[in-house]
């Protein structure tokens, strides 16, 4: 059973137990949130011993090289000595809100001043700090064309950060973030590949960024975007997406409503099912799945079985929570 050395103490993990679960079991508080290898809140650094490959997935190259890993995804095969992130490696970034507008009843668009020297790709995410809480939000802006950062924030019942953003936050308010994180973004390795983008709710944020990023970089293959919601009021940016489809012959937009009552303007059914029905063979396609975690999980399997290669499937499952996230003390 591997032993973990952390802050001058040694903790024994059970076999196949993650570093995060093991430390938590021993009563050691480690910042964490999704516990699924996504949000990167539980980022830690290996002082001795090797973090597993899977625990370094999605972490920035420069941090991987410095042996950073995700405590929730790391099930060590041997002893390790670990530490919290070094503040110098992960500087907190100061910015401010420059505008906010509703996109539908529950989702608002926030524009933030792009911090000087902030390098990111559309579809990556940032962690936003507010008091002792933090939340992950995807970047819907495209660095080449937008001189601001854009987030789509869904209001969560009793959500600490989304509530504050929707109700109180105004232009000029300061914000603290760190990031960017994640590998759910476009890369220009094959501009003729067909892209399939499936999202639900505010999962449109990364996809809106990824589609425009691909187009801005001269992507020539078809780009099919399916956006789903239970009812039509949950859809948003409908006009903007239709205009994008008019301007770019290779961009196709399909709004989907799953709760019945779809009019002629929308397809009736779940976005992933409609997409798979229209495109049952996905060999050679690149896939982006964002939004509801259950949808992302099941769609991942479906698109894989439909022929998409594992390395061509990018996924960003959104976990929504109302309770407090413990943020690392800066």
């Amino acid at each position, binding site marked *: 059973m591997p032993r973990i050395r952390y802050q001058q103490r040694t903790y024994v993990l059970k*076999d*196949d137990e993650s570093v995060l679960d093991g430390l938590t079991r021993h009563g050691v508080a480690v910042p964490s949130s999704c516990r*699924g*290898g996504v949000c990167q809140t539980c980022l830690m650094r290996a002082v001795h011993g090797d973090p597993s*490959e*899977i625990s370094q*997935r999605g972490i920035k190259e420069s941090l991987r090289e410095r042996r950073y890993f995700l405590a929730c995804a790391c099930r060590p*095969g041997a002893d390790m000595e670990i530490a919290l992130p070094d503040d110098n490696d992960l500087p907190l970034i100061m910015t401010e809100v420059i505008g906010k507008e509703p996109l539908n009843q529950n989702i608002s668009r926030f524009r933030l001043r792009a911090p000087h020297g902030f390098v990111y790709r559309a579809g990556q995410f940032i962690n936003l700090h507010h008091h002792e809480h933090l939340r992950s939000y995807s970047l819907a802006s495209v660095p080449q064309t937008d001189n601001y950062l854009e987030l789509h924030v869904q209001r969560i019942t009793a959500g600490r950060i989304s509530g504050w953003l929707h109700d109180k936050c105004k232009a000029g308010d300061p914000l603290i973030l760190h990031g960017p994180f994640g590998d759910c973004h476009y890369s220009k390795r094959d501009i003729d590949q067909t892209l399939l983008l499936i999202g639900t709710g505010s999962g449109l944020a990364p996809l809106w960024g990824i589609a425009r990023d691909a187009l801005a970089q001269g992507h020539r293959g078809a780009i099919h975007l399916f956006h789903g919601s239970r009812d039509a009021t949950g859809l948003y940016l409908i006009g903007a997406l239709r205009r994008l489809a008019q301007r770019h012959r290779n961009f196709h937009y399909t709004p989907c409503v799953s709760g019945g009552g779809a009019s002629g303007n929308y397809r009736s059914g779940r976005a992933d099912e409609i997409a798979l029905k229209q495109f049952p063979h996905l060999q050679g396609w690149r896939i982006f799945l964002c939004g509801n975690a259950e949808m992302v*999980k099941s769609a*991942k*399997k479906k698109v*894989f*079985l439909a022929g998409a*290669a*594992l*390395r061509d499937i990018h996924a960003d499952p959104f976990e929504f929570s109302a309770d407090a996230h413990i943020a690392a003390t800066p």
Partner: protein
Amino acid sequence: MSQNLYERIGGEAAVNAAVDIFYRKVLTDDRISRFFDGVDMEKQAAKQKSFLTFAFGGPHHYTGQAMRQGHAHLVKQGLNDSHFDAVMENLAATLQELNVPPNLIAEMAAIAESTRDDVLGR
């Protein structure tokens, strides 16, 4: 012999090519697909990769103990020899699809076969 197998087969690139094919076969095999319901695909693919690396005679961190623990909950759900046989079939079919010569397939099958008792908790 097995020391060179991994290199003869093409190393990590060969494993990567095999993972997608093998995992897709396993997930669509009605005899065993239920054991993969609800599992996280990325974690599972990483496990398939380490299994194939092991079967290909490559560098691995495979232990009998971990195999037992990793499959104990499936044994409780009825995992038995017939399911192990199904996985072996899928492995062979994957390698055939990749045009691996029969003598190398036999070598890999023997390595994979050596895990049977640990997987089935015997």
